[in-house]
């Protein structure tokens, strides 16, 4: 398994830092280092501020500017970025005047393409929040532009930097789940998915502000639940399967929050993947695996998780904890007993008929836990990105190809919902 950059180098850092400390006095250690990477953040709303806060704790970065065309959000960005950061309401002016080495893009989805292109044109390396683009076409163009440059590019799918998901990937790769046969994931919540509007409904600016703050709810700006939530989890699937889907059928609608929103408040998808057998299987023929995905805004019972199922085990994944359940083999179900020689099995008739029950817990052994013993994955993804920038290493943990494949994966589901038909994954993006 190739570890994300930051995870493999952190240990070295601690060792060298501790060594250095033995000779340096505390005041020397507190002296500010030169040679920091000059970072600017465009779009300091909810996510942009998260990124600013994390960036400000990374030694190799200096936030030189923040930009947002909505004053209250620009103010927030400036507060978290610190005094050294210049503020701009016009990001183009910022690119021109500041010439940052790195641009972090956290504007609403419909602007990702334009802002990323402008940032690349300014010569900067770019970190773009997920989902990479609002349309597949934009994604293709952006990918071509990045490939044709020598600029470092990363999409903000932070599970790629999360130790739990990296561990899961390694477990699958080594065959611990056996043959992957299915997956199920969902992100279920129970709220109206609205941002508050700071003026009364009667205010002349209400409409404009509502659209700006609640861009997520409108088709022109947003690709709804699939882009905002589904992208994270379908990226996990593409990553764990090391494949893109071949097609999707999907349905969804505005069925509960009938408040003027245009994006579905519930979506259900079935994806098909064609996988090649990898682990000790007799047949080498490709086979089909189906994955269900759902997202709700009116019931939170299931929360957010991914379940990867194989013939020998199941992985339950969240960003805080992973659980590996091994399938019960015939010899530990409880109604099969080996004879004295340990070779021939015989059925014990007085035993329980566990094998016939539908009780889900009957088949789940005690899971093996995968903990995240430290580290915030958003910070880790940024640390990793900045290492790649420093090393001029274009192969980031979530590069433009992964970003494009992810965007196409979620966008074909929305297409399927609109057209009420099965939609094929674009052929040119499959490998």
């Amino acid at each position, binding site marked *: 398994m190739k570890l994300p950059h930051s995870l493999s180098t952190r240990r070295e850092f601690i060792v060298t830092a501790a060594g250095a400390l033995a000779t340096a006095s505390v005041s020397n250690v507190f002296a500010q280092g030169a040679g920091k990477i000059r970072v600017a953040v465009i779009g300091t709303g909810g996510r942009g501020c998260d990124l600013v806060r994390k960036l400000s704790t990374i030694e190799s970065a200096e936030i030189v500017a923040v930009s947002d065309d909505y004053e209250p959000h620009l103010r927030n960005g400036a507060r978290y970025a610190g005094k050294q950061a210049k503020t701009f309401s016009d990001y183009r002016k910022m690119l021109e005047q500041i010439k940052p080495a790195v641009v972090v893009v956290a504007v609403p989805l419909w602007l990702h393409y334009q802002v990323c292109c402008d940032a690349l044109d300014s010569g900067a390396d770019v970190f773009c929040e997920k989902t990479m683009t609002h349309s597949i076409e934009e994604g293709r163009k952006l990918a071509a532009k990045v490939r044709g440059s020598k600029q470092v590019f990363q999409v903000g799918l932070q599970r790629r930097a999360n130790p739990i998901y990296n561990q899961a990937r390694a477990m699958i790769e080594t065959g611990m789940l056996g043959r992957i046969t299915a997956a199920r994931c969902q992100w279920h919540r129970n709220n109206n998915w609205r941002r508050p509007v700071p003026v009364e409904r009667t205010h002349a600016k209400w409409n404009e502000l509502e659209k700006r703050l609640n861009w997520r709810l409108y088709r022109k700006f947003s690709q709804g639940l699939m882009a905002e939530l589904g992208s994270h989890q379908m990226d996990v699937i593409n990553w764990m399967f090391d494949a893109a889907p071949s097609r999707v059928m999907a349905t969804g609608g505005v069925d509960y929050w009938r408040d003027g929103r245009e994006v579905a408040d519930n979506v259900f998808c079935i994806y098909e993947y064609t996988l090649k057998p990898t682990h000790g299987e007799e047949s080498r023929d490709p086979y089909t695996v189906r994955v269900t995905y759902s997202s709700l805004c009116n019931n939170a019972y299931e929360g957010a998780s991914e379940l990867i199922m194989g013939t020998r085990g199941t992985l339950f994944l969240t960003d805080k904890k992973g659980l590996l359940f091994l399938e019960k083999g015939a010899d530990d179900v409880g109604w099969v007993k080996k004879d004295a020689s340990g070779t021939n099995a015989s059925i014990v008739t007085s035993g329980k008929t566990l094998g016939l029950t539908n009780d889900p817990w009957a088949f789940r052994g005690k899971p093996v836990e995968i903990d995240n013993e*430290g580290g915030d994955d958003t910070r880790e993804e940024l640390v990793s990105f900045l290492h790649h920038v420093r090393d001029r290493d274009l192969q980031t943990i979530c590069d433009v190809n992964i970003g494009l494949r992810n965007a196409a994966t979620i966008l074909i589901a929305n297409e399927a919902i609109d057209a009420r038909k099965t939609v094929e994954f674009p052929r040119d993006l499959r490998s």
Partner: protein
Amino acid sequence: MNTWFEIVLPGDDAENLQAAGEAALDEIERIEKLLSRFDPASEVSRINRDAAISPVLLDVELTGILETCRKAWLETDGFFDIAVNREEDANFGAIDFDPDTRLIFFRNVNARLDFGGFGKGYALDCAARLLRECGVKQALLHGGTSSVLAIGNDANEQPWRIGLRDPWKDDVVLQQVDLSDNALSTSATGKTVSDILDPFQRQPLQEKASCTVIAESAAQAEVFSTALLCMGKDKVASFVSPEIKALWTAESPSPKIILL
């Protein structure tokens, strides 16, 4: 914090108030993720893990929080101390912290930060700021009922009325206090083993008492209710002012609240 937070938002626009309430609760969750000692992904966990090995770079917000806590440590003669813990011999004095470079370093390897006596109040202040930015003019917020913050007045344009319970008996209200654009925090001992430590003895407080502080911000109220309870009733007088009011409850002969 592992605490139940609630927000009361009077008004007509239910849709927008719900969105505002959700945003405020998200903000509280964000603070929890920043300050929790138990979440390995929190900033405080990162500091506690690394700061005795080499200096750790803080974000701007945590730098501000540490400045506030250092000031409180000095102002309360060391009775408010986010670096005290029961197992190890360390206090805020063992912490090097430079607000300009935003670096923190533990000179004592046993040092650890614990925002247990600060986080709830601070989270309420942040949630209140966000609600005000959303245009909210009336709200009551509380964390675990021991920290309470009021924005404006209640739906009847009266100050929000809060009942102070007998700390040792459920459902006995000893006194009412009115809040309006200010906050209150209660610290008490004697119901279960106290989680408030006397920084000088490094022991849970022994005396059965309760201290309620009313102040401009919920963080300030929490800092002082914690510190004043630690230092004991007799020392409190020098800390109260027009901005900071303190109410003290002792058990004997019968629970009674006195204004200090």
